[in-house]
């Protein structure tokens, strides 16, 4: 069922595989303008995680994409309440440069946040804009990961902009959210050529053939699982990964091993 291999059999039968936990590196939280979420309350999210075998969900608040102060505080509260399930991405909005320094200081005082989340398209500010320089400097100095939305097309958040950033800041663990959607091979090559660049799979998994290109050109050790939860059911993404032509070892790399190594999350 679904595909050959033990992982496919067990996910199909049980919805989860005990020795193959999942780390979701790209989640969200709270209501959003464009969509109805049936299951977005923290308890519902945790129930989904249990059913899908998701051990950790690293998330950024929808509210934080517009109002960073309130939104990041909301995530801080959720992480504090459920420290065994959630970790946070600290969202920064380049359209409020006067807040940047204060909010970077705020990051230091909060527990449970792993790094920063940027959304160049949502904030209509190219990833190469000077407004992000304080973020890059801060993350580079501390070796912190940054999850950024990436998408095909020139001049905003494609593999080209990612390459420009990481050539200047090579020590940043840069997660290409949506794996540079559309520019599959070029994005995979950026991940291959830069030690700390990773392809994050939200939405990308649903394009048949994209995963195989990523594995071929970047290797399964450079790919991370993510879902935009509560947008997408983790089972949908997991099912797409099970369908892709790769080994169960590749699938394990993608579903948890790489994120565990990069984000230092315990799996006990």
């Amino acid at each position, binding site marked *: 069922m*679904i595909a050959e291999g033990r992982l496919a059999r067990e996910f199909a039968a049980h919805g989860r595989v005990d020795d193959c936990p999942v780390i979701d590196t790209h989640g969200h939280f709270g209501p959003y303008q464009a969509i109805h979420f049936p299951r977005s309350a923290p308890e519902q999210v945790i129930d989904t995680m249990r059913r899908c075998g998701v051990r950790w969900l690293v998330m950024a608040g929808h509210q934080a994409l517009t109002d960073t102060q309130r939104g990041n505080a909301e995530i801080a509260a959720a992480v504090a309440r459920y420290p065994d399930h959630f970790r946070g991405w600290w969202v920064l909005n380049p359209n409020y440069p006067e807040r940047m320094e204060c909010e970077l200081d705020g990051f230091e005082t909060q527990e449970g946040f792993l790094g920063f989340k940027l959304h160049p398209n949502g904030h209509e500010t190219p990833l190469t804009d000077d407004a992000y320089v304080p973020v890059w400097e801060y993350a580079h100095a501390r070796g912190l990961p940054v999850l950024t939305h990436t998408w095909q097309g020139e001049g905003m958040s494609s593999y080209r902009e990612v390459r420009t950033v990481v050539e200047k800041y090579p020590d940043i663990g840069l997660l290409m959210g949506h794996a540079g959607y559309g520019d599959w091979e070029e994005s995979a090559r950026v991940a291959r050529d830069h030690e700390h660049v990773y392809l994050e799979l939200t939405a990308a998994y649903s394009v048949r053939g994209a995963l195989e290109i990523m594995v071929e050109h970047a290797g399964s050790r450079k790919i991370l699982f993510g879902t935009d939860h509560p*947008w997408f059911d983790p089972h949908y993404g997991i099912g797409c990964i099970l369908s892709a032509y790769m080994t169960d070892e590749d699938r394990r790399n993608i579903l948890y091993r790489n994120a565990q190594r990069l984000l230092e999350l315990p799996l006990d």
Partner: protein
Amino acid sequence: MELFDCNCWYGVPRRPPLAGAETAEVLVEEMARAGIDTALVRNAAIFEQSPVTGNRLTSDDCAKYEALEPSWGILPPQTDELGDLDEFIAAMRRENVRSLWAYPEKHRYLLSATTMGGLFEEMVCRGVPLFLRRNEMPGKFDTYELAERVLLDFPGLRLIIVAHGSWGEDRLFRPLMERFPNFAVDTSRYELDGGIEEICNTCGPTRLLFGTNFPETPMGGPLLTLLQANISDDDRALIAGGNLRGMLEEVRL
């Protein structure tokens, strides 16, 4: 539980998807790998070239594989490209075609009572379902507006919108479900956490048909989502294939 995919295709489109399925044989092999029993299929020539060519190719290929059930495209009866109404229905009967697809944007016609009234009346009378792809119309929400207009004119028509996009579109399709008892969507891109469960609880399981959107989308995503949805096994079986099987068995050609 029968897994009956209502939304997949094969063939050679002008611009191939990242990983295509040029022949029916490839599709059947992928279905066997995924554990999908049956599929309602169409050759890409139906939407990329013309139903005149594509309908024939689809029927010829489906005749070779028990797992494939042919589905045809429609054109305005007034231009007589697929024969007049009686001839078209007779051809459907002869080839055992029990469902139809409309591509009004690609094939440049109005999916309206004026254009399709005679055919839609026959489809209502005979219980033949009509499928529409979510991205067929160019505007953001045009396909839903079109579906609403068609259903207002033909509330008895069984209309299914497929591949409705990864952004949950419940705000768009649930009002149609509430108003029109014969309206449904497929699950190929229904990725929303809890979406299937909520539809079962609010609108009923008959409003969802299992689909994969293959070859554009991997079969495993919609498949695992349905297999593990937090719904009853009876509801799961209806969505997996029971609804479509029942719909097709009620068709009177």
